[in-house]
């Protein structure tokens, strides 16, 4: 038997309207918690992009001349291999440098347009056994022909990575608690809806309505509440992004401009948020239906 969609939708909307205050509380809690999750995710994305070169514990980057010969590059590589202070390193050619550059400056297309692949230097990303030795190793490598310059991971970058990781953990922790309360609020809203319709439910069971027919409006109600919260959160993320962007522009902190994630990347985070919202709604209503509907 097909389930008449019109009926299910009408019932769901009627339920939502009947318990509108509780629905509002559930939606807002979902929205706040999902905004936090989204904000934390965007922060991580932005910081990772800004500090892209320094990911994976890289402490030192050896930039070659953009026109360095293969022999020069091989020589620099073998010098790094021979150095006892070097734990490991990997080579980033011009093509990959360009790809990373495009990603970092995706929010500034005019910048990307003015730079071509051949302008960018190939580089070695180096991880040391002991970070304190960076100047020693760097000094030795800098003398090799074809090496343009050696950059060290400044304390500032390191601190920023650490601080953001703590901020992110705290935000995600708070968000987890709030998500749980969103689930509980949705559960309770559905429970009240079930109680409000107990006569109908009893009659439906009596005359042989299928279990899914009885459950569906309640499940849909939870789904809509979760999704509504997540859509608000997605909107909040758009505002957050533009607020951070305009702050950075206003104070002319060009270094941080790549912290603002481009819209395409933010979109994937927003979709994830909507997905989590849908899951929160479904989990809450599924618990309520299982526990209180008894079909």
């Amino acid at each position, binding site marked *: *038997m*097909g*389930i*008449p969609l019109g*009926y299910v939708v009408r019932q769901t909307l009627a339920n939502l309207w009947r318990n509108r205050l509780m629905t509002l509380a559930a939606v807002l809690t979902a929205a706040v918690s999902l905004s936090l999750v989204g904000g934390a995710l965007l922060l991580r994305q932005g910081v990772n992009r800004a500090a892209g070169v320094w990911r994976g514990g890289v402490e030192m980057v050896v930039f070659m001349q953009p026109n360095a010969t293969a022999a020069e590059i091989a020589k620099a590589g073998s010098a790094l291999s021979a150095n006892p202070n070097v734990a490991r390193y990997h080579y980033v050619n011009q093509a990959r440098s360009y790809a990373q550059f495009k990603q970092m400056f995706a929010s500034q297309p005019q910048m990307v347009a003015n730079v071509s692949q051949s302008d960018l230097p190939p580089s070695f990303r180096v991880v040391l056994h002991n970070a304190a030795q960076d100047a020693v190793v760097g000094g030795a490598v800098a003398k090799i022909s074809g090496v343009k310059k050696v950059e060290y991971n400044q304390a500032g970058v390191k601190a920023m990575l650490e601080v953001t990781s703590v901020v992110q953990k705290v935000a995600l922790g708070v968000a987890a608690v709030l998500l749980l309360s969103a689930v509980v609020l949705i559960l309770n809203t559905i429970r009240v809806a079930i109680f409000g319709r107990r*006569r*109908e439910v*009893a*009659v*439906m*069971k*009596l*005359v*042989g*309505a*299928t*279990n899914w*027919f*009885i459950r569906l409006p309640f499940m849909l109600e939870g789904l809509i509440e979760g999704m509504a919260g997540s859509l608000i959160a997605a909107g909040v993320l758009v505002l957050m992004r533009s607020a951070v962007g305009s702050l950075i522009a206003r104070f002319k902190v060009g270094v941080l401009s790549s912290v603002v994630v481009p819209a395409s990347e933010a979109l994937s985070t927003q979709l994830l948020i909507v997905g989590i919202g849908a899951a929160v709604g479904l989990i809450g209503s599924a618990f309520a239906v299982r526990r209180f509907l008894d079909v």
Partner: protein
Amino acid sequence: MIRLENVTKTYKGGVDAVVDVSFEVNRGEFVFLVGPSGSGKTTLMRLLLREEVPSTGRLWVGGKDVISLSKGRVPHFRRNIGCVFQDFRLLPTKTAAENVAFALQVIGRPRHVIAEQVAQVLDLVGLQGKGNRMPTELSGGEQQRVAVARAFVNRPLLMLADEPTGNLDPETSKEIMRLFERINKSGTTVVMATHDAELVDAMRRRVIALSGGKLVRDELRGSYAEADSEPEMITKRAWLHKRGSDRRF
């Protein structure tokens, strides 16, 4: 239609509601289920509807082994059973016609079928022209007619009625009974639990009596009270009178 073999239902906590009951009801029969409160009538009804499952024994309804019925099949099983209760169980926010239509809506019948069948069944129960009334605008007897219409609109093979006249005055009760008779004549099996001795005695149909969860009597053309003590126990007053004369105990 119905077949019970040594059915026992023990609730959690060890209360034996139905004990080792066996009987059979053929298609088209009209059966009264009598017995004092707590004798297991309602539990028996719940077993027939598969709201409960027997603790032991075997049970068939409409040719289906009710006990082995999977949870997902229960709704489809119930579509062949109509149910009427003492408290009507109408939805107060819906009109009489909407209450009846609801039963068809929720099993996914198309709208034009619903409109036609609701009108038909309201005629059948004698409520023509009252479909637009709210339950509160109807008398008790009319409300019970709506409930009967709702139970019958899907043309079930079996009608279960649990004290359907319990809230009605004697005259209205008789009308409702006539309605059940008509439904029975159309070929639907009727099983009715009742306390109404007068109605049972007037109908002279099969009577199954329960006491303490046990089947104590099963008569084809029975009365409410036991046949051999009928002269003394046919009415409550006579029974009390007899008690009065036995005061020496």
